[in-house]
């Protein structure tokens, strides 16, 4: 999973091969450089590990006033960043796990999301909250949640989940430049992913999906890391004669429903893959929207592949059952396409099973953190 299956479709000319970590670090450097009102704060931001390397070197470069650690007080610090934001600064806050953002829901939902609206547009909150989804290595029930659905339900919050390094960079720049609060969610299995990344500052618009693969038989709309699994699934499906169109949604809110509708108008079938829980989640919203607006295009019931409605158990023995894979997606896609799963299908699905242990993204990935 560490090689970018999209390597060939990266657009720009002046590009370098980078990991997600390097791309995010790049974006932070550029944002801190071009706008002196930008701040970066979070538990571990200036420490030797630098939030998995994404913030390494930044304190040295931009000084301890603009790049700083914080007390363990997620709620107040979120409010403090809101206060700084309405006072003309642009704070970027980091949570090493999105689970920690649950301590700050009051400030995020009651204040950040509403401040501009409830004061009639007389103030604005240009705040970015980077949240990392901590899959793998036994993170367990309180360190592996993928909570995008909670934030996406709140009017006033934008929620984005890039996958590829170029998007991670461009969307982080766009989020920092945005005058409203953005929840920027990084699945940690996108961190080691390599891809071509344009040099210099650029912004990738928030709210736009990206088609990663063309296909005519079924649309697979995927969020965050599931895009990678979907692309693998699509390759397996192709060998079974099914051409899947894969869309990397990139944003959760705003949600690019038109992009999915266009695709479903062609394929007539929809499968949504998300990194969060099944019920009341992101997949349900996309299915509902497509059903409402594209009912006549649908030739079969849409389906989804998500986490089960269950806290994440720690034991590595369960990881492969808790987390859906390319094989899960391919199997669901076959069902949506009405293909009976015979011997050929079973063999192809088996090939899609991961070859690394199911609690790590690749052999380089090590515990404990």
């Amino acid at each position, binding site marked *: 999973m560490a090689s970018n299956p999209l390597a060939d479709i990266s657009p720009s000319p002046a590009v370098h091969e980078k990991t997600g970590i390097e791309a995010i670090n790049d974006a932070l450097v550029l944002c801190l450089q071009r706008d002196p009102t930008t701040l970066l704060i979070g538990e571990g931001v200036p420490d030797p590990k630098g939030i998995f390397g994404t913030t390494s070197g930044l304190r040295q470069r931009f000084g301890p006033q603009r790049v700083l650690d914080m007390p363990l007080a997620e709620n107040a610090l979120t409010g403090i960043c809101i206060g*700084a934001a309405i006072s003309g600064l642009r704070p970027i806050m980091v949570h090493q796990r999105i689970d920690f953002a649950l301590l700050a829901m009051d*400030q995020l939902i009651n204040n950040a999301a509403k401040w501009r609206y409830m004061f*009639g547009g*007389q103030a604005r909150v240009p705040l970015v909250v980077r949240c990392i989804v901590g899959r793998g290595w036994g993170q367990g029930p309180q360190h592996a949640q993928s909570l995008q659905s909670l934030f996406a339900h709140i009017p006033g919050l934008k929620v984005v989940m890039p996958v590829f390094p170029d998007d991670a960079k461009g969307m982080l720049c766009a989020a920092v430049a945005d005058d*409203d609060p953005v929840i920027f969610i990084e699945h940690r299995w996108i961190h080691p992913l390599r891809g071509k990344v344009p040099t210099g500052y650029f912004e990738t618009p928030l709210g736009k999906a990206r088609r990663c693969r063309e296909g005519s038989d079924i649309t697979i709309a995927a969020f965050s890391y599931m895009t990678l699994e979907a692309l693998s699934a699509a390759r397996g499906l192709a060998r079974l004669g099914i051409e899947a169109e894969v869309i990397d949604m990139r944003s959760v809110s705003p949600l690019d429903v038109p992009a999915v509708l266009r695709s479903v108008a062609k394929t007539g079938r929809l499968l949504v893959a998300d990194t969060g829980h099944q019920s009341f989640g992101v997949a349900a919203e996309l299915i509902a929207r497509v059903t409402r607006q594209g009912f006549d295009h649908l030739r079969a019931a849409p389906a989804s592949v998500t986490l089960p409605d269950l806290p994440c158990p720690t034991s590595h023995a369960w990881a492969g059952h808790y987390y859906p894979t390319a094989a899960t997606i391919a199997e669901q896609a076959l069902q949506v396409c009405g293909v009976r799963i015979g011997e050929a299908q079973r063999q192809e699905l088996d090939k899609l099973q991961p070859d690394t242990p199911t609690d790590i993204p690749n052999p380089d990935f090590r515990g404990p953190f």
Partner: protein
Amino acid sequence: MDELFRQMLRIRRVEEALAERYAEQEMRCPMHLCIGQEAAAVGVVSALAEDDRVFSGHRAHGHYLAKGGDLTAMIAELYGRASGCSKGRGGSMHLIDTDAGFMGSTAIVGGTVPVAVGAAWASQLRGEGRVVCLFFGDGCFEQGVMHESMNFAALHRLPILFVCENNHYAVYTPLEERQPGRPIHAIASAHGLHVQELDGNRLHTVRTAADEAVHRTRAGDGPQFLELHTWRWREHCGPDIDDHLGYRAPEAQADWLARCPIEQEAARLRALGLLDDIGRQHIENAIQHEIDCAFDSAQRAPLPRVEDMYRHLHGQ
């Protein structure tokens, strides 16, 4: 100091007028009056510079007015008008007047606490020399965010004044049912803040303490904490007097009424020869006139247009 007396009286008369007209059911939003607590608002805010910032919570009319917030815009906001200070989106619990430096009050107890600290942080980072002043109640002090915020403010020595208006109740619940018998300001002191505890109904005392606190924090001494003892005269939320419910001892109520911040200050001014009946009547008349005009103009202002409801969720 004459002017400060006028300001207290103005806040009192504004709120009395609000209370009187609330029954018309045209101000259709929850409203928390600060009648009886005017000395805290005026005494502290008058120690600030015009360019300093104020934040508050649900009981904010007095702080907004003391900081120079537009009276007509506030009343229009309560009437749900498009010209309201929050464009009809906030009501009594969400006031703002950025021109006056009143940066916002909100309805969640504790909600503005860290926001104010963030504004002080911004002031420090940008070297603006601005002081931020935050008002909150004794109940708010129980919220964890209060302590997280004091810690950060002390850590970074931020230019901020924490002003606790301790009116000894949160809604109907007395302090003793919510906090153990130890002083609030002692905790702030243990957090590393410079603290003062005082009678919040004596304008003069409040002003002197606030002067010192503002001076200190502007000079780089870090966050300051004032615990002001005071008393709310009316019901927690709404226009009425609710003594008949019996949740507060009648003696305490009588005692605090006798310590009216306005009449105490009036007596002081009289004793100094700075105020007499005629002078007071002049002030009363001018205030009454201003209030009448403000209500008049607020009530004549148009209601917001349907199509504007969706504006201001996001920028652009």
